[in-house]
């Protein structure tokens, strides 16, 4: 049976893990390597490191964090934020990442996704889509870590990135992100109807029940959480215990 992946999302600014609400208002919450190691030891399935201010510098600067993480963390690692060209991807993979998440550059130059998938393989390329609801059942894609609207419809864009060669989609809801009020279930139901690549949901988990609800209502492939782990409301262990208790198929 396919197992839903429980993923820790770690946003980093200037060597610190930071957390915000609606991708803004950032607070320092800890050291990225300490947190990654703890989550790994507690049984996390995967870790995503996002460079939260890459857009300002137009580059990704998490190499040294990834290098350190790889010494102690033996689950897949994705790195995103400011991935602008093939060199950035090569650098990320050389430092030990398994996948890269591409948002802004993919929207500015869609052919970049195809080129990246050709060179590194689709399995390395995660299309990161950041969505804000504009009206019932419609969402707009944002870039620059959720700061800039694009007028692109999220569902159409998701359908396109799959054809361009992305191996996976990570879909973050700006409306729910950091609020701990649960996931945007309608968003994930809608996207799972439009694409056939794996989808990771990100944004909104407030308690373990939110993950249970998402897994039961939607054929989601991965669930990324941040606030509830970073603020220690739940641990990886308590999240997984609850999911298992509710018969959600996950890795024990």
């Amino acid at each position: 049976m396919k197992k839903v992946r429980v993923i820790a999302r770690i946003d980093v600014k200037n060597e610190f893990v930071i957390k915000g609400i609606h991708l803004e208002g950032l607070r320092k919450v800890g050291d990225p390597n300490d947190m990654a190691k703890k989550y790994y030891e507690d049984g996390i399935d995967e870790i995503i490191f996002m460079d939260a201010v890459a857009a300002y510098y137009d580059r990704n600067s998490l190499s040294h964090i990834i290098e350190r993480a790889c010494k102690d963390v033996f689950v897949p690692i994705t790195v995103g934020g400011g991935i602008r060209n093939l060199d950035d991807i090569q650098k990320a993979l050389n430092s030990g990442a398994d996948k890269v998440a591409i948002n802004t550059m993919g929207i500015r130059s869609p052919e970049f996704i195809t080129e990246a998938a050709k060179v590194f393989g689709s399995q390395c390329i995660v299309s990161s889509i950041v969505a804000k609801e504009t009206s019932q059942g419609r969402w707009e894609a944002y870039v620059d870590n959720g700061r800039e609207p694009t007028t692109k419809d999220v569902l159409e864009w998701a359908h396109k990135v799959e054809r361009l060669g992305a191996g996976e989609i990570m879909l973050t809801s700006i409306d729910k992100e950091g609020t701990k009020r649960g996931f945007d279930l309608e968003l994930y139901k809608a996207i799972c109807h439009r694409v056939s690549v794996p989808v990771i949901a990100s944004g909104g988990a407030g308690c373990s029940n939110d993950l249970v609800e998402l897994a039961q209502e939607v054929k989601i492939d991965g669930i990324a959480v941040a606030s509830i782990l970073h603020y220690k409301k739940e641990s990886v262990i308590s999240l997984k215990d609850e999911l298992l208790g509710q018969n959600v198929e996950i890795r024990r």
Partner: protein
Amino acid sequence: MNKVVILDYGIGNVKSISNAFLKCGVDVIVTSSICEIDKSIGLVVPGVGAFAHGMEKLKEKGLDKVILNYAQEGKPILGICLGMQLFFDQSTEFGLNKGLGLVPGVVKKLPESSEKLPHISWNELDLSNEALNERGLLSNSSSKNFYFVHSYYVEPKHSETILATTKYSGIDFCSSIQYGNVYGCQFHPEKSASDGLRIISNFKSICEKAI
């Protein structure tokens, strides 16, 4: 010092594999140097991406012949993901492509089904070959979860080659092999947490016993 070589042919997450071996107390070196490969007690062939590209990169440095010679000498070889697939006769990825022909069998695409492709998930091994598995590569791995990321799988010609299968896309595909001294995993042991590290430790034992 007895070293395991992780083959450097420009493809694959060698750093992760190297770190995982180091964590298991193995002295490793990432290289394509024939001298180091000759001296080693085991060889790991990593790989991610497309089959044809993988074969091209191996041939560029003459490493296809190096792997075949190594296997003939009887020293343990471990192929991971694409690395294992390259050991086989041929693959249907992007047209018909020849592999190393080291292990009889072919590489095929996972069938279209209600399950998504690529197969990116943690999944279980159903151990097939009790005799080989008791103290072999997969000892203590029954029903444990490992990390898979692939769209193609290997189909060995001889069923005795199959160490384990895994359920996905409506089939039980071969997820691990042993053909004499040639071993392989479709999953990534270096990304499969402590259960994956155990596989690496098992390979370490296999290499030490073979000295």
